[in-house]
């Protein structure tokens, strides 16, 4: 059985906050729920499924309590930042199987106001078996991604300028998104002149830390026909992990190499048919590796693929039109925003950054840490099927 055309995302909401010391994480999630249900033309009483991640070991129960919900389907699978992309697949499977009808997916975080240094602050000691051989060496999140960038440069001659191209185009998109945190245009020179956080990655190769949150409403394709706005049909979904295995892994092969083809096969779409790519951009190298591993270009050709503004919303390969984690928002686990922007683009609601012809969107979330352990979740959405 395939999920193709069985369900749709009918409500989305991106919380406008980027810094919210006056709000709680649960408040951000509740306001986001209100926004997405309003967007869908539904009420809280219609919700019988609830998904979230990043709220503590049994946080989904607390969240149900906070919303005074009694859902019959619950999922708090935590794959890191890709979780919410994966939740759309899980929710769709549950709906298609008749377990529930309408699922609310929520995310909220106050990482910035708590001054949580996501990329450079932790010891990396999470207490799982492999950590014993890693945390002792000071593996920052940015450091692990930097090692992938260093290896890519070594194998393929990818340059710091090419990585910077991604940051520059993404900032251009942010300048067209009033909700984005950073609007001022930047140049390749600006990226290269910013300080090196972990070589070869500069500060402007790294996502920000913000507060924020968002919500999605997923329901059956049948119910979606009655939704307030144009449904974004789920065409394909898949997830994967990559890790250090027994020590023989190729660090440039990321989870997208497995989840991408699987989701696209389910969706019955080719690369050429994808109008917009929403790719988790924790760092510039994350985007380059993901595009290669998804098959939008050959391995090693990512540097040329992202250059000359080709990822621009008005270019040949529109990517990350909301301004991404690099320039719009990154509260720690950004996957939900990939789906929100994808849906807005499919509806034609993206304003100044609207991709002209947008009928198929591919979202790919990366969670955890490339070069260490990470997950990938691919979701293909379409305006029809």
């Amino acid at each position, binding site marked *: 059985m395939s999920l193709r055309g069985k369900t749709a995302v009918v409500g989305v909401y991106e919380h406008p906050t980027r810094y919210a010391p006056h709000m709680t994480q649960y408040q951000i999630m509740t306001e986001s729920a209100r926004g997405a249900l309003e967007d869908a033309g539904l009420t809280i009483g219609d919700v019988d499924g609830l998904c979230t991640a990043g709220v503590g070991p049994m946080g989904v129960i607390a969240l149900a309590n906070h919303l005074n919900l009694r859902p019959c389907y619950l999922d708090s699978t935590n794959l890191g930042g890709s979780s919410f992309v994966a939740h759309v697949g899980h929710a769709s499977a549950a709906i298609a199987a008749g377990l529930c009808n309408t699922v609310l997916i929520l995310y909220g975080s106050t990482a910035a106001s708590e001054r949580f240094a996501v990329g450079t602050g932790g010891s990396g000691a999470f207490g799982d078996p492999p950590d014993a051989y890693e945390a002792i060496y000071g593996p920052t999140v940015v450091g692990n991604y930097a*090692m992938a960038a260093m290896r890519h440069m070594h194998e393929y001659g990818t340059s710091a300028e090419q990585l910077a191209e991604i940051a520059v185009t993404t900032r251009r998109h942010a300048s067209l998104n009033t909700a984005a945190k950073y609007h001022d245009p930047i140049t390749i020179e600006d990226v290269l002149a910013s300080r090196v956080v972990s070589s070869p990655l500069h500060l402007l190769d790294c996502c920000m830390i913000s507060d924020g949150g968002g919500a999605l409403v997923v329901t059956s394709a049948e119910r979606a026909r009655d939704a307030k706005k144009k449904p974004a049909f789920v065409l394909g979904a898949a997830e994967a992990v990559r890790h250090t295995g027994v020590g023989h892994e190729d660090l440039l092969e990321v989870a997208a190499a497995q989840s991408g083809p699987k989701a696209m096969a389910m969706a019955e779409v080719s690369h050429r048919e994808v109008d917009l790519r929403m790719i988790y951009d924790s760092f510039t190298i994350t985007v380059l590796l993901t595009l290669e591993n998804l098959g939008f270009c050959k391995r090693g050709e990512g540097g040329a693929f992202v250059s000359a503004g080709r990822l621009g919303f008005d270019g040949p390969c529109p990517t990350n039109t909301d301004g991404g984690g690099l320039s719009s928002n990154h509260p720690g686990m950004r996957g939900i925003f990939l789906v929100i922007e994808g849906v807005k683009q499919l509806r034609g609601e993206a304003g100044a950054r609207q991709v002209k012809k947008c009928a198929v969107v591919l979202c790919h979330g990366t969670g955890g840490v490339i070069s260490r352990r990470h997950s990938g979740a691919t979701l293909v959405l379409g305006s029809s099927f």
Partner: protein
Amino acid sequence: MASKDYKKPLPHLDEENRWFWEACARHELYLQKCASCSTIRFYPRALCPSCLSSKTEYLRASGRGTVYTFTVTYQNQAAGFRDELPYVMAYVELDEGPRILTNVVKTPPDAVTIGMPVEVVFEDIDEGLAIPKFQRARA
């Protein structure tokens, strides 16, 4: 116990890895080799994930390898590491095959390159604990 001045995380010793750290304390680096399917594995585990066999051979590593990739870390707020910036984190590909995360030490950070031959050097934390790191191989 490590001195209270040592602020970095310490390896968590358990029933699957205690032997590995005891060997490190003797300044010996070990890998495991599956006695059933011959897969060499790192990090230490009781069972071979390839064939799920419990039959394990213990393979003393030469301690030699090359830098597979690395980064010079300029920012880390975590205790212990922030006092040692910049430091080099690297994956070293051992001559026996596995790639292991480590620090390249006693080598100027700007001298480190991918492919550079390195050799293991143990940092003694206390009598019962030493951490394997790598330095540029002596000719």
